[in-house]
């Protein structure tokens, strides 16, 4: 396993400097949560780490490195707020889409190896949706869809997982359940999670950073006590949530 380091990274759209001179380390096998209000640039930062920023009008500074010396590209799995399931593909086809995208066969319908199929079914079992393998995404609930997205992320089996508010669109109970499930299933992966929900960041993060200001700056890391996912009856967690909520609210009223 390896740590991922962001060295003095910055990004600007034309004249607008979104953030600059940011330093951040993602510790191997840990969850790093980035908290911030809307429009502060947290998604942009995550996209940059994922290598998804390639428009010509965007200027990027700094470096993203891994401490094993290999490039990060090709070692990440991406999970966004929208589950991004392909509506024409069955649940099983959605989970294995990466495998099929990477085959270089030109016209033949790319068949999956039985090993890959077994693995996909196993992932579906892990998220508790094995009986939905042949169903189209439109027939699933929001929580189920996000579980499929989680299974797809697991199927990719990359050491680093980048998540952009993956549970943002879900109701409170479903969100808590999915947080627990993600925590369990992504154990051992290096995770970077973007969220605007302080409770989510505090439940899941080994380190929680707050991105704020223009251009955006990172605050010092908050390291909540205890193992993740942290339970809600922890008084310290609740106090921290209150502090962070106050800070976020104050920011919004200033902006």
């Amino acid at each position, binding site marked *: 396993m390896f740590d991922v380091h962001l060295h003095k990274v910055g990004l600007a759209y034309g004249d607008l400097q979104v953030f600059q001179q940011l330093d951040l380390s993602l510790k191997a096998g840990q969850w790093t949560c980035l908290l911030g209000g809307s429009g502060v640039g947290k998604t942009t930062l995550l996209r940059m780490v994922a290598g*998804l920023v390639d428009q010509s009008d965007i200027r990027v500074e700094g470096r993203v490195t891994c401490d094993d010396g290999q490039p990060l590209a*090709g070692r990440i799995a991406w999970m966004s707020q929208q589950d*991004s399931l392909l509506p*024409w593909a069955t649940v099983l086809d959605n989970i294995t*889409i990466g495998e099929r*995208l990477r085959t270089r066969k030109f016209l033949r319908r790319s068949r999956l190896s039985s090993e890959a199929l077994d693995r996909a079914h196993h992932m579906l079992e892990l998220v508790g949706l094995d009986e939905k393998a042949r169903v189209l995404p*439109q027939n699933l609930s929001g929580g189920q869809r996000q579980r499929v997205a989680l299974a797809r992320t697991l199927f*990719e089996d990359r050491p680093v997982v980048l998540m952009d508010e993956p549970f943002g669109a879900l109701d409170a109970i479903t969100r808590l359940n999915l947080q627990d499930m993600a925590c369990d299933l992504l154990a051992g992966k290096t995770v970077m999670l973007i969220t605007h929900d302080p409770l989510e960041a505090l439940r899941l993060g080994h380190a929680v950073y707050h991105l704020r200001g223009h251009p955006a700056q990172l605050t010092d890391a908050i390291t909540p006590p205890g193992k993740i996912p942290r339970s809600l009856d922890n008084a310290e967690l609740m106090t921290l949530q209150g502090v962070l909520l106050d800070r976020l609210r104050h920011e919004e009223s200033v902006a």
Partner: protein
Amino acid sequence: MSKRFAVLKPLLVFIGILLLWQGLVVGLEVPSFIIPDPVSVFKRMVSDAGLLWEHALVTMAEMLMGLTLGVLFGVLMALTLVYFVSLRPWLLPLLLVTQAIPVFALAPVLMLWFGYGMASKVIMTVLIIFFPVATCCYDGLRQTHQGWLDLAQTMGGGSWAVLRLVRWPSALPALASGLRVAVVVAPIGAVVGEWVGSSAGLGYLMLQANARLWVDLMFAALTVLAICSVGLYYFTDLLLKRLIPWQTSHH
């Protein structure tokens, strides 16, 4: 129950119009060379069924060939526009020109070049169909949901694989709207071509019948043309719904 009623409604409207038509013609004593009554049109359809069938086949063949080629060229054009960005400024005006010049104006020239046979009608149909198919398919391909493209990129998909597995299927609903329009306008190309010069087809038959004041035969040919067009539309619509069953909403 309500589904069966949905089929019934247009049928009721149709029957109502026929009754009104018959009533007006009989009631106002309109001469039959101006407007024939539905009953005599129907009689003509039965007595000249062989003739109508023969000409309908020609028109249908022209329409179907035009549709096939038009859709093929339209899709190829859309793919070229999406993947060869530098060609875009050259091709987009060309695409517009195929629509800006009325096919009616082109018809005599096409007759001159491609003769009075089927070829000129097929080409005219292609010209009409090409535009809606190309623009709809182009829009569909361009508006691939960014989340899917992000995902494909992080998964390391090659551009051919991304086209085949993500962009093409995501463009299908848009392409389907283009196809529905294409199917509706296809008869225009074929029939205009037949009017300008031909020796077969429903358009030709209508022209001949009109010249001889066989207005009932003209209406019969018109009815057959309408049945062909509407049938083609419903068949296409059904096929598309079967082939593209997913909802297009991008929540």
